[in-house]
């Protein structure tokens, strides 16, 4: 076992994969700087900075993949994908179906996501629910270095379009770049085990569509992806002190969802708390509720999600993003509704 940062894990996988397969190319804004090491190793033809033309180059990624390459298209922050969503919704996701199954789109879309560093509501969104909605798109959100590498490997190997989302609190270079700018006087609630940790000596793909139970407890299940997972783990630790034992499920993949693992856990705990940094309504958290109801698993259910535009002010931002305290409170109410009054 080696240890690595979240960011290095992804880079390590890319170095290996790009060395092995010349069809893999990377493009996006500023990639010569953001992926400087890849740029130095593979040269500008394979690591290519783009104009600020997300619609053009994301759309080009789709047909580049159809033409035989394995492009990794970078959209700096997921918020910006709003200007180019057509390439995913109406093209990448649909072409396999449109072509009668004859043509596939092996493209990876790599994006930074998430908040917690005071950048305001147009630069801190999660948006995985929106991207997952359209049939044909896969969306993965790793929560630690091993899965970051493993899911990137799977994404590259997948024959369909996969959105790979890396949370800015987990990828140290994003935070250094966007939040600190060389300052040492700011604090972020960085999940340590998410940002740095063990990775396998030889990279193995983390299967897309497989959740992982990272903590077992009988009183309720918590489910999350990315940073939310760590918030749940911390909440679970606090809840233990209060005599509540929570299972925690790292969904890892938003789409396709691993409904089996979820249902299995909730069948035992009879309670589900979803901590989701994405918007509350019409997204991941609702889909998990539907999953349980469809499976006929009765359970108490609650969500700790983002319910409004993320505020710029870091204090209010911290309240709007799912935080440990909100999760703990909601979990207690879920387990013991009477505690509401206490």
């Amino acid at each position, binding site marked *: 076992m080696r240890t690595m940062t979240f960011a290095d894990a992804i880079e390590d996988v890319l170095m290996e994969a790009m060395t092995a397969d010349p069809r893999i190319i990377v493009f996006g804004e500023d990639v010569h700087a953001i992926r400087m090491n890849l740029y130095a190793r593979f040269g500008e033809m394979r690591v290519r900075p*783009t104009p600020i033309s997300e619609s053009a180059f994301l759309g*080009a990624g789709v047909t580049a993949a159809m*033409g035989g390459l394995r492009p990794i298209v970078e959209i700096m922050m997921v918020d910006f994908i709003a200007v180019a969503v057509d390439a995913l919704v109406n093209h990448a996701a649909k072409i396999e179906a*449109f072509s*009668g199954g004859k043509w596939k789109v092996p493209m990876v879309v790599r994006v930074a996501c998430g908040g917690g560093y005071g950048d305001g509501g147009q630069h801190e969104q999660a948006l995985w629910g929106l991207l997952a909605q359209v049939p044909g798109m896969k969306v993965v959100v790793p929560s630690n270095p091993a899965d970051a590498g493993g899911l990137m490997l799977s994404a590259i190997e997948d024959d369909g379009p996969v959105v790979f989302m890396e949370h800015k609190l987990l990828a140290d270079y994003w935070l250094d770049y966007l939040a600190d700018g060389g300052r040492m006087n700011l604090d972020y609630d960085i999940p340590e085990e998410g940002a740095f940790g063990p990775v396998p000596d030889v990279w193995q793909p983390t299967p897309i569509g497989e959740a992982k139970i990272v903590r077992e407890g009988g009183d309720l299940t918590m489910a999350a992806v990315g940073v939310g997972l760590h918030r749940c783990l911390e909440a679970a630790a606090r809840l233990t002190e209060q005599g509540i034992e929570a299972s925690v499920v790292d969904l890892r993949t938003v789409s396709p969802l691993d409904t089996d693992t979820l249902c299995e856990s909730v069948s035992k705990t009879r309670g589900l708390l979803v901590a989701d940094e994405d918007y509350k309504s019409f997204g991941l958290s609702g889909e998990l509720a539907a999953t349980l109801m469809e499976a006929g698993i009765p359970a108490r259910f609650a969500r700790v999600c983002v319910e409004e535009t993320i505020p710029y002010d870091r204090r209010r931002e911290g309240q709007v993003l799912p935080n440990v305290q909100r999760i703990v409170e909601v979990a207690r109410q879920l387990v013991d509704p009477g505690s509401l009054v206490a």
Partner: protein
Amino acid sequence: MEPDGVALYSQMLKSRRFEEAVTALWREGHISAEMHLNIGEEGIIAGVVDHLSEGDAMALDHRGTAPLVMRGVDLVLLIKELMGEEDGLCAGMGGHMHLFVPELLAASSGIVGASGPAACGFALANQHLRPGKIAIAFFGEAAMNQGMLMESINLAAAWSLPVVFVCKDNGMAITTPSRKVTGGNLCTRAEGLGAQAVSVDGADVGAVWRAAEKAVERARKGQGPTFLHATCRRPEGHFLGDPLLRIVRNPVDELKSKVGPLVRAATGSGGASVGRRAASLGSIMDMLGRAGKMRKLGRHDPLERQAKRLSGAERSGVDAAVEGEVAAAIRAATERMEAGP
């Protein structure tokens, strides 16, 4: 080089006859919803695709039939696709606006402007995997106002991608005259995005062929993208069943239900000044007039123009062969239909 006039004529004719058959099938209700034809713009398509060979890619818009017919796609599969059959070109899943042929690197989209990025992606793949091979983007003049298309011309210029951007300018976006909603000049615009720009009369297949020859060669040599602007006229309007043409062709029936509300609206109290209302009505009449004028191809017919350049013998040979081929394909494709379910 000089184009092979007979071959070009033959390609155009095949597409024309094919789309005439499509028109009949559509009218009979065997093809659903929006069917956009290339009739009238065959000169542009033929003049361009004649330069293509294996490994070259085509990004198509909502008018994808002609390029595929001319590149030799199986007509039976194609017609079956338009009819939504499971054994159609795309298993009946894509339909008229979503025709995909991996072997030809040909992909379509019904989203206006999407052929720009699509051509860039194909060209990028070619740059890496099939040097010397290129990509064509087909689109209308109104698509030039769609951001992603402009972005993609710039992208192609910045990356020296082997793309030829072919703008088929019929002057209309459905019912909107493009001049009214388009600033500047499209060739200037393309130059300002880093492409070389050239304009031709799209009804002259030879002229298109020669302009395309240079553009294709530039692309193959890695000298970057060209914007090929070609004018055309489309007698079927925007799509089969174009609402303006329906009125033009059959004013009494078509206007019956429309005139009452229109007159009431134009004369009701409240609203714009009489002058402005009159201007609106004028512009509606204008729109109908324009549609009427477009109906007749006349000297804008690339097929007729090319036919005149051929000898009677050349022409009748091609006519018979092509008509036979298309008729046979339609028969084969509709056999089951004729036989009943």
